[in-house]
């Protein structure tokens, strides 16, 4: 077979290749409402580091934290690092970013919401920036498909709190996300690694359900404002606690009988064998009163 023009051969090849399966992917487009029943977003007690694989520095950083620091303008946005997509209360609004020429998928975008910066997961294989590049609250994210799993890696994000006022990640941290869609459910597994504040990877999951009736109120990225006049009258004031002086250090122990050594976290606290260290030290608290009180009743709310 002889072609008069090389272009015809090329076109033929393109057509034939397009009939071959390329790679498996799923559509993540839509608004996904969080539906998992877990304590990702709970923060009843100021010192609750249970199961967090904090390093010694990470624990010291967590125990120095006074929530009033969030009112300092330069710190107001540190509550919204990329991990906030998993621990925050808001749904995920995911959309496709098409290539302007070919209309093929260039990136997935998770819209900014409730002060969390938007996340653009570049799918075109572009490299991450130099380690000297500026960091943002949202960071820089690339993604790729592994079968029907979307794996995304985020770098270049600023210091931020990682589980609703419980512990921090540094600006050297990275997050690897796995997005698994199962029908109308989307499971996101986040693996946070930080050479500064974590001794081992910190894994969190969240489950979302696709909704056709989203309660949407997208907000802009975090915008610092003046919250506490005293902080602005005295810019040198940074709310904090000195080592060993956190006033809520013993709150979990007093409320739930959980030994302080467990409350302060560390990688050993997230493994099953840690239960052996607790067995002779722990006594369940008295029953919770029906009207509420210690421990919280929970239920069908």
């Amino acid at each position: 077979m002889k072609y008069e023009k090389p272009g015809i051969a090329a076109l033929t090849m393109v057509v034939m290749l397009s009939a071959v399966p390329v790679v498996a992917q799923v559509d993540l487009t839509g608004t996904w409402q969080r539906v998992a029943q877990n304590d990702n977003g709970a923060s009843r007690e100021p010192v609750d580091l249970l199961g967090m694989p904090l390093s010694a520095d990470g624990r010291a950083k967590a125990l120095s934290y006074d929530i009033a620091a969030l009112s300092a303008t330069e710190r107001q946005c540190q509550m919204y690092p990329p991990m906030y997509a998993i621990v925050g209360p808001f749904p995920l609004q995911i959309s496709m970013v098409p290539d302007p020429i070919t209309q093929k998928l260039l990136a997935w975008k998770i819209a900014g919401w409730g002060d969390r910066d938007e996340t653009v997961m570049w799918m075109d294989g572009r490299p991450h920036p130099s380690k000297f590049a500026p960091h943002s609250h949202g960071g820089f994210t690339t993604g790729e498909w592994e079968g029907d799993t979307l794996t995304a890696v985020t770098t270049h994000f600023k210091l931020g709190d990682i589980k609703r006022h419980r512990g921090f990640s540094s600006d050297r941290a990275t997050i690897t996300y796995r997005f698994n869609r199962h029908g109308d459910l989307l499971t996101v597994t986040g693996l946070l690694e930080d050479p500064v504040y974590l001794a081992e990877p910190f894994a969190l999951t969240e489950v979302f359900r696709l909704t056709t009736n989203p309660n949407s109120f997208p907000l802009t990225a975090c915008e610092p404002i003046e919250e506490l006049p005293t902080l602005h009258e005295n810019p040198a004031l940074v709310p904090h606690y000195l080592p060993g002086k956190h006033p809520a250090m013993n709150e979990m122990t007093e409320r739930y009988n959980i030994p302080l050594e467990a409350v302060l976290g560390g990688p050993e606290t997230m493994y099953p064998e840690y239960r052996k260290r607790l067995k002779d030290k722990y006594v369940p608290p008295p029953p919770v009163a029906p009207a509420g009180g210690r421990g919280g009743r929970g239920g069908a709310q």
Partner: protein
Amino acid sequence: MSRVLCVVVAALIVCGLVRLEAQRGNPQPPRAPRAAAPIDLTGYWVSIVTQDWRWRMVTPAKGDYQGIQITPEARKVADAWDPAKDEAAGEQCKSYGAPALMSVPGRLHITWQDDTTIKVDTDAGMQTRFLRFGSVQTPIDSARDKPADAPRTWQGVSQAQWLTPRPNVPLQLRPADRTADAPPLRPTGGSLRVVTRNLRAGYLRKNGVPYSENTVLTEHWDLYKRPNGEEWLTITTQVEDPQYLPNARLVAPVFKKEPNGSKWDPTPCSARW
């Protein structure tokens, strides 16, 4: 131009014939689930307890149902929780049933019982789950009421199914051209879906939060291999109980693979700890 069109059409026809022939000719017998496994779940896995620590690692106070949605009827049952009564009845394993078991801190030992059955042993509570694959062509949901004759057990009857990546991709989802040095995309992997019924009524939490025998448990087991060689497992767990849960309970416990069973620590069920 008409010549170009003819070539293109011919190419499409050839491609179609080739694929049609592949479907018609020399039909291959379906491979056994073990041989067809798109992911390897076998080995020892340890649960990573970074979520719900206060309700999983220790026995919470009676009446502490924070973070779990239950009906008023369930609340009455839970308020009557009496571990001594469970012990006397020989029901120390009520909090180790399949709807709760994967959230119990411990280790899993996953093996193939035979070519169609995955066996999941736990050291916590010394329980065993059998995840049985049916006919490749039979959706597992079609057997919804089938196991009703079998005796109800803590682990129930689990039907398993491999979910493999779809071979065809909608055009708009195909990735844009990648840079020359980008790693190639890998059309690999898969997921395990498990539906469990015929359960004996038990507890979602150690402190007596109940699930009924009409509970249906649906799980998706997803495996991740990291560049450093680590393997992680997330089990998306959906518990539906028309009696005690107003909404499906969804959690996703995480496990990390261990190189061997040196930390395997069989421990009997306990109604109190």
